[in-house]
């Protein structure tokens, strides 16, 4: 099938099968799982994944074609996004054949839900300084510790867990990657309320959780290299979404604001012009990155510049909007009160602005690295987390 035919077929399938109601009442999860099974049956789940493990074995071209058609729909795939975007690709790249055989197909069919367990309260930007311990006991590992900022963990069947297995070596060299059963009785999932008052993330506590050694991914103490694979997939899946739409419901856009503020005031108008300028500047940058990608120029770390600019734009626009609207914007049920509470999210998730600036400086501009004090010290002697 040539690409145009592929795209037409995808378009037709989506027209017939995509849910029209993107916020189904009742058993949303059940219906999402049903949809994923149908998506897989139709050949649109795991388009580029190896056919041997349940994928379609096609190319990026087909994946992009499907994504382009799907852009007009809101598919109920959020709960599967960690599995599809991060943990699945990691297993495809680095898992054993037995692991791929066991996990990939149920993941692509939506039968099993995945989460990712890297960040900890004391290890955010600096994930490699994590403290959750896994200790080998015969043919299994015993895990104790705490993870945080975990999406969809309350629905998850499996988690991709990075844990410390050796404290006598430098921090990057004593980590190992595992697949952990989220239904193990030692796993506690607790919703984490964020500053908007909602709970989009979880905290996970591990209390003597057992993991069989065959659920280890990669070699013992080589977990950091596996994590780098996962984080690369994460970055790709974030940067591809940056700035493309996603502002439809935002009450702080120019289109939303022009309806509610006094555009007779020249100063208000000029502020809206500033918002327009910044929004267009970033949107055009993102479109250029997308065009370059299609032309085979891989954006690499330049995506981090786009992510940084997006974080700044979200903050700027919510801040501006509340100032333009005035006292009303401070009422809890005003959309801008939620928007200003949510505004820091983009700057704090997926790497802070400071981390993004380091990435752009180091990898795009090729600037000399900061001297590192943490790469050679045994982990047990290293300062980590919060210390006085």
């Amino acid at each position, binding site marked *: 099938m040539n690409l145009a035919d592929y795209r037409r077929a995808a378009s037709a399938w989506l027209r017939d099968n995509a849910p029209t109601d993107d916020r189904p009442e009742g058993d949303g999860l059940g219906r999402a799982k049903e949809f994923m099974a149908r998506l897989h049956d139709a050949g649109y789940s795991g388009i580029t994944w190896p056919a041997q493990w349940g994928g379609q074995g096609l190319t990026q071209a087909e994946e992009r074609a499907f994504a382009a058609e799907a852009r007009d729909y809101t598919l109920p795939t959020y709960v599967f996004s960690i599995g599809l975007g991060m943990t699945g690709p990691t297993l495809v790249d680095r898992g054993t054949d037995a692991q791929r055989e066991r996990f990939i197909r149920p993941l692509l069919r939506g039968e099993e839900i995945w989460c990712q367990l890297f*960040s900890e*309260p*004391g290890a*955010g*930007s*600096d994930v490699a*300084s994590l403290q959750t311990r896994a200790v080998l006991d015969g043919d299994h590992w015993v895990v104790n510790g705490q993870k*945080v*900022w975990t999406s969809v963990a309350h629905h998850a069947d499996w988690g991709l867990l990075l844990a410390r297995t050796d404290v006598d070596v430098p921090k990057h060299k004593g980590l190992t990657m595992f697949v952990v059963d989220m239904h193990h009785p030692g796993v506690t999932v607790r919703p*984490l*309320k*964020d*500053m908007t*008052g909602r709970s989009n993330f979880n905290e996970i506590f591990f209390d003597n959780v057992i993991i069989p050694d065959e659920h280890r991914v990669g070699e013992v103490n080589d977990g950091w290299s596996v994590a780098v694979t996962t984080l690369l997939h994460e970055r790709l899946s974030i940067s591809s979404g940056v700035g493309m739409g996603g502002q439809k419901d935002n009450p702080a856009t120019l289109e939303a604001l022009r309806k509610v503020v006094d555009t007779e*005031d020249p*100063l*208000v108008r000029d502020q809206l012009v500033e918002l327009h300028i910044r929004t267009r500047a970033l949107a055009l940058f993102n479109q250029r990155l997308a065009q370059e990608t299609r032309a085979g120029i891989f954006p690499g770390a330049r995506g981090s510049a786009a992510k940084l600019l997006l974080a700044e734009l979200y*903050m700027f626009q919510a*801040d501006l909007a*509340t*100032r*333009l*609207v*005035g*006292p*009303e*914007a*401070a*009422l*809890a*049920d005003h959309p801008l*009160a939620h928007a*200003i*509470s949510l505004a*820091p*999210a983009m*700057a*704090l*998730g997926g790497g*802070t*602005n*400071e981390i993004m*600036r*380091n990435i752009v400086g180091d990898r795009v501009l090729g600037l000399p690295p*900061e001297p*590192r*004090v*943490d790469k050679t*010290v045994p982990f047990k002697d*290293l*300062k*980590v*987390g*919060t*210390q*006085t």
Partner: protein
Amino acid sequence: MKLVLSEEQRELRAAVRDFLRTASPLPKVRHGYDPQVYARLNGELGLSGLIVPEEYGGAGAGLTELAVALEETGAALLPGPFLATAFAAIALTQVPDKELMTGIAEGRIAATLSETELTLDGTSAHGTLAQVLSGMEAGVLVAPARSGDGLVMVAVELAGPGVTRTALETLDLTRGQARIELEGAPARVLGAAPEIGDRLCVALAAEQLGVMRAALDAIVAYAKVRVAFGRYIGSYQGVKHKLADMHGKLEQAESIVRYAAWAADESPEELPGAAALAQAYVGRACFEVARDHLLLHGGIGFTWEHDAHLFYKRAKADEVLLGPPRIHRARLAQLLEL
């Protein structure tokens, strides 16, 4: 011009700070208004009577002293009607009323102020006030009202007849507002409505100064204990330089607040410009510092459990409390005769 606190003013500051540290520590402010703390604040420290003339049982102090107190209640994110009562007291210093003044000085009366005009028909007031600060906690409303005698200042008992109050939750978890409808509520005329907007600007700026100082202190303290990549985050120039810039804003904000409070007390002709400057500069600086303090905390700053968002939200709510901030800039343009 006096930009440095006197020995007495520093003592006042220390007293309020010490009191709030134990009576209203940060973990407590999430639970909202505590009338007991409020009573002690006014009783033991006499804060509510600070600017009430001595003849009415107050301390007869000026806005300079009130600013010192508000800076501390701001830094503590004190919940409840302290700022609202201060606003009302500011109005009452211009239209003195023995009953209210004495009640406020004794801490018996929590009041609030609205700048929206009511209509006054004989002794009954009508009107809808969309957003009244601490409107649920206050017992008395002071507001301008249009009457046959022109614009007057009136006092309305909020627990009395003809008053409907609806609690409004706000972005600021530590301090709510209320929608107040008056349909023939008994109103007492206090006098001709005075010009008090400038003094409100100064009082609010003093609270904002406290909010930004506390936010900066919090993130500086965190930058000294939080480690990333084996180093305290405060040792990275990415963090350090931002904190240095925040310090510069704080120094300038404090200078402006001291100046504006001094102008309110000593140099009435400078007050309008000083007051507009205070809101134009300090309101913005306060939010920027609170914002950056939150962002520099990293992920933990985004959690409900952490206090960072309380400062961030208070700063934003304060920034728009007296209207869209551009009004202060417009006033400056007018005063500068541009």
